[in-house]
């Protein structure tokens, strides 16, 4: 426990003091909340009519459609990014220099560029060649978003997988070669399964990032959840007020719930993995969320194993 390191079990005096701090702290936090609520109320943002729109059938249908499109993008992008991740990881570990360089260059480039810019560039590109590529209607935005998410998250997943492959004990590979397996066989039957198993929590945590990033479709006017919410908030006015607050709150709850469900899965797998005695430590679930966001973080941060814990 981190907490218990810093202070002793409180005695009578400390207990009283802590209680005072607790009261003062709670009051301060409560004060901030009350201030916000009062201000919103003064602006008429808490009127029941404003929040009543969430009861309308078509508003609910719209939100549901938004959630479905978001999940659709997420599902396609998640599958494609995992496939790309495996390919890039294998490419990066290839014995052939050109393949290695190509994979490394691809990973470094797309990890370094803000995802939004990649998606936007793809969108503009697809728009200008719309007829040649055979896109109609929303297809342009959909594929710009999905491909953008795929190249970015695929690059990150590749680094995660590479860390996992490097963490497989060397003897495994040597033993596989010793019994006459070919390179491909070693990779597919010995290294990859163990790497994926060890890195599963990190991989899923990165999927949480992918899920959150689907909201970037908002910028390229793809009608996912966030764009739907914004559109409704702009177009629905009650008492001459737009309805941002209720819709943002509703959307926030949905996003947080979806992400928490995925992180819970990652944590569960991490806990399960730690019980297994395979000799390869399972990565921590929480780390990828920060590391995945970033360039160059994977190498140090998500290398699985006792490095972090004993330090």
């Amino acid at each position, binding site marked *: 426990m981190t907490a218990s390191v*810093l202070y002793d079990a409180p005695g009578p005096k400390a207990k009283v003091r802590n209680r005072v701090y607790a009261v003062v702290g*709670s009051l301060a936090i409560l004060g901030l909340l009350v201030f916000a609520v009062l201000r919103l109320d003064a602006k008429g943002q808490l009127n029941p009519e404003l929040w009543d729109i969430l009861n309308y059938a078509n508003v609910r249908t719209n939100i549901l459609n938004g959630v479905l499109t978001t999940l659709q993008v997420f599902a396609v992008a998640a599958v494609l990014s995992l496939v790309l991740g495996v390919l890039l990881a294998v490419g990066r570990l290839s014995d052939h220099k050109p393949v290695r360089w190509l994979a490394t260059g691809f990973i470094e480039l797309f990890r370094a560029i803000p995802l939004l*810019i990649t998606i936007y560039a793809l969108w503009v590109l697809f728009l200008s060649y719309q007829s040649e590529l055979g896109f109609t209607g929303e297809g342009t935005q959909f594929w710009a978003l999905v491909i953008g998410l795929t190249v970015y998250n695929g690059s990150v997943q590749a680094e995660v997988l590479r860390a996992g492959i490097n963490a497989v004990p060397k003897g495994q590979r040597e033993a596989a070669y010793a019994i006459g397996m070919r390179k491909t066989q070693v990779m597919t039957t010995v290294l990859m399964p163990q790497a994926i198993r060890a890195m599963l929590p990190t991989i899923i945590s990165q999927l949480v990032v992918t899920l959150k990033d689907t*909201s970037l479709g908002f*910028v390229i006017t793809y009608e996912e959840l966030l764009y739907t919410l914004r559109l409704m908030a702009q177009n629905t006015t009650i008492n001459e007020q737009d309805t941002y607050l209720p819709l*943002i709150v509703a959307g926030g709850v949905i996003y947080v719930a979806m992400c928490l469900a995925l992180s819970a899965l990652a944590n569960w797998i991490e806990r399960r993995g730690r019980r297994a005695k395979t000799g390869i430590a399972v990565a921590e679930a929480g780390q990828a*969320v920060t590391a995945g966001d970033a360039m160059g973080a994977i190498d140090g941060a998500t290398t699985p194993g006792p490095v972090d814990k004993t330090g």
Partner: protein
Amino acid sequence: MNVLLDHLPEFRDGFLGTIALTAASAALALVLGILMAGFRVSPVPPLRAFGTAWVTLLRNTPLTLLFLVAFFVVPLILFPGISPFVLATLALGFYTSSFVCEAVRSGISTVPLGQAEAARSIGMTFMQTLRMIVLPQATRTVIPPLSSIFIALTKNSAIAGAFSNTELFNVSKLLSDKGFAIGWIFLWIALAYLVITFTISGVFRLLERRLEVAR
């Protein structure tokens, strides 16, 4: 090539805008993040709960949604007519603070137990232990994750461009709206981001080497 030369002022403004936004929100995130980390390890349950709620909520919300909150809800609570730069800084700073908090917290947990015990045994209070013994030592382990958090922040700041801030994404959008080839714009913008992120990682590597001490 011509896009860059013909529109150098725009590119420069965008570059400076990205840097200003990143710096301002990094400062905010650092202050809030360390405060929240302090809350999360404190002996006071309500503060701990607040810190946990803060991290859970902000880490699991898409940044784009936070931008919507900043631009459409915050002006209602504070005062209307806040500059987009301040609002974008708030959104980015609050979002990033949750990652800073977690990095600092895990840094604190790497400080050997005996250090805090020794501090307590000579009669230091929680605040003294944290401020004089634990945090200075935690700094060292926190620096690598902080570096990647700030790099992520730089890239996340692109979203601010979609909310009428002048920065690199905004510039690329303006220029491609004017009909310049997106490929070239993309390349120059990518290069600009690389310059910023490499600088950050370089500075942090320097810091890391400076603060390196054998334990």
